[in-house]
C-alpha cells in the first residue's frame, strides 16, 4: 500500500493560482498598492491627480489680460478647490467631481430679458472666439492664485439674451444634483449655490465666462463646463458649473450672504482695508508657484480690488465700501 506523506513543498489544488487571476496579476498588484495607500493616508489627503492630457485642448487667442506674477501650476489649481457641492475639504472636489455630468449641458435664462429660454452650451459659447486671460484669483480665505482661464467675456454672452431696462442685476445658479454632487446632502449653504452681480458690473469687460483652464477643457472641480470669473471680487463670487441665469430688477440672493450676511456682503470686492470679521484681509498666502517650505510660507500684500482698481473702481464711485462690503 502506498502511503503518501505530503512534504512541505507539495502544493494542494487550492494553492495554485487560477490562470485567469495570474494573467490579471498586475491589476491585483495595482489594487493592492492602491488599497495600502488608502489605509496609510487620511481620506482628506487622498486626491486623484488630474492629468492635463485627460482634458481636450481648446483653441484660444492670447489676450492682453495678463499679470506679471508666476502662474499657479496645473497640479495646484486642479487639486485645491472650494466647491462645497462636493465636500468642504479642499481635496474633496478633485476626488468627487468626476460624478458631475457635464455633457449635455444647458443653461436656462429667465427674468428681465427678451431672449429667455434654455440654451445648449454650444449655442451660448462661440468656441471660435475663445481667448485666454491670466487673472489673479483671491479667495476670501486669504489665499491667491494666478490662473490662465480660457473663455469669452461675460458681457458678450449676456448681450445675446437682450436684457431689458428692468434688468438691474443678474443672478447665476450652480447645478444642484444630489446624485452627482454628494456634498449637497447637507445644507452647508443654501443649494443651489447662487451668486449675483449688478448689471453694470456684469457688463464691465473684466468678468469672464470660462470653459477652459491652461488651454484645456475645464476639469469638473474647477467648475466645468462653464463658470464665472470675476477677478476683482473674492473667489466665491466666481460661481461654478452655471445652469441658470436670471435677470432681475432687485438685488438677488447670494448663497454666502444668506449664510452669514455680516461676513459676506453682496459686493464682496477684494479690499485689504475691510477685515473679514474672523481674519484679516490685508495679506494673502500665494498658492503654487514656489515649492517646499518657502513656498508654503509665501505671502503677498492684498491689493485694492485685487489689483484691478483701474478697471473697476469707477463702478463704486461714491459708495461706502465698508458698508457695501
Amino acid at each position: 500500500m502506498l502511503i503518501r506523506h505530503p512534504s512541505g513543498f507539495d502544493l494542494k489544488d487550492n494553492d495554485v493560482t487560477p490562470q485567469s487571476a495570474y494573467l490579471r496579476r498586475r491589476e491585483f498588484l495595482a489594487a493592492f498598492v492602491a488599497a495600502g495607500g488608502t489605509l496609510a493616508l487620511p481620506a482628506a489627503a487622498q486626491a486623484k491627480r488630474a492629468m492635463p492630457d485627460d482634458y481636450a485642448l481648446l483653441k484660444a487667442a492670447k489676450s492682453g489680460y495678463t499679470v506679471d506674477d508666476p502662474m499657479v501650476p496645473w497640479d495646484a489649481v486642479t487639486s485645491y478647490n472650494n466647491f462645497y457641492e462636493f465636500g468642504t475639504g479642499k481635496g474633496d472636489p478633485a476626488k468627487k467631481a468626476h460624478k458631475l455630468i457635464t455633457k449635455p449641458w444647458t443653461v436656462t435664462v429667465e427674468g428681465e430679458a427678451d431672449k429667455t429660454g434654455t440654451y445648449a452650451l454650444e449655442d451660448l459659447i462661440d468656441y471660435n472666439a475663445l481667448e485666454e486671460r491670466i487673472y489673479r484669483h483671491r479667495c476670501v480665505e486669504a489665499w491667491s492664485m494666478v490662473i490662465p482661464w480660457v473663455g469669452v467675456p461675460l458681457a458678450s454672452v449676456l448681450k445675446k439674451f437682450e436684457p431689458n431696462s428692468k434688468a438691474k442685476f443678474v443672478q447665476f445658479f450652480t447645478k444642484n444634483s444630489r446624485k452627482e454632487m454628494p456634498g449637497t446632502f447637507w445644507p452647508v449653504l443654501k443649494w443651489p449655490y447662487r451668486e449675483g452681480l449688478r448689471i453694470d458690473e456684469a457688463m464691465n469687460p473684466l468678468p469672464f465666462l470660462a470653459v477652459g483652464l491652461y488651454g484645456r477643457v475645464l476639469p469638473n472641480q474647477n467648475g466645468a463646463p462653464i463658470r464665472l470669473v470675476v477677478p476683482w471680487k473674492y473667489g466665491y463670487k466666481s460661481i461654478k458649473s452655471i445652469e441658470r441665469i436670471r435677470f432681475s430688477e432687485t438685488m438677488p440672493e447670494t448663497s454666502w450672504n444668506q449664510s452669514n450676511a455680516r461676513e459676506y456682503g453682496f459686493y464682496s470686492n477684494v479690499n485689504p482695508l475691510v477685515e473679514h470679521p474672523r481674519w484679516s484681509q490685508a495679506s494673502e498666502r500665494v498658492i503654487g508657484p514656489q515649492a517646499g517650505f518657502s513656498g508654503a510660507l509665501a505671502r503677498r500684500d492684498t491689493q485694492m480690488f485685487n489689483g484691478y482698481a483701474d478697471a473697476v473702481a469707477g463702478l463704486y464711485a461714491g459708495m461706502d465700501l465698508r458698508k457695501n462690503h
Partner: protein
Amino acid sequence: MTLKTIPFAYLKTGAFIALGLPFAWLAWQWSLLLMGQYNDLGVNPIEATNRFLGDTAIRVLLITLAITPLRDITRMAALTRLRRMAGLYAFFYMSLHLGSYLGLDLFFSLAKLWKDVVKRTYITLGMSAFALLVPLALTSTNASLRHLGPKRWKRLHMLIYPAILLAVVHHIFMAKGFQLMPLVHGAIAIFLLGWRVVKWYRVQKTKRTA
C-alpha cells in the same frame, strides 16, 4: 483571549502607538515637504497642518472622555489607567495646533496672537480651551496626584469638561457655512458629558434612598 485578559502593558503600548500615529504621519509628510518631494499636505500645507492638528486635538480629547464610559460598560478597570496618557496626547496635539498657528501663520508674533485672542471670538474660545488644559498637563505626574490628593486632583481635572465644549464651539465658529463635522464632534462631546451627568444623578438618587 478576551479583551480583559490582554496584559495592561500591551494595552498601554498599543494605545501609545495608536495615539501617536497622527503625529507620525504629519512628521513624515513634513519631511517629504522639506525634502521638496510630493506629499499629501497639498498645495497649502500650513492650512492642511493646522486643520489636521485641530481635528486630531478634538478627537483625542473625545477619546479621552470616552474612556470612563467605556470602562463603565466593559467593567475593565484598567482602562482608567490609559486616561492620563490620552489626555496628555490631546494636550500635545492642541499645543502643536496652537504652535502651528503661532509659528507658521503669525510668524511667532505674540502681539498678533494677543490681538487675535482679544478680537476674534473663535480664537478666544480656542485659547481658553488650551488655557484650561495647561494645569491638567502640569499636574499629570504621580507626584502631583499625591501632593493634591485624589479628591482635589479629580476635581481639578474636571476642567476637561469645559475644555472640550470650548474646543468644539471654537471649531463650529471657525468653520465657514453650516458644516457637519464640527456638529458631529459636538454631539459626541455632549453625549460623553451627558453620560457623566446621568451617572452623577443616579448616584445622588441612591444616596438619598439609602
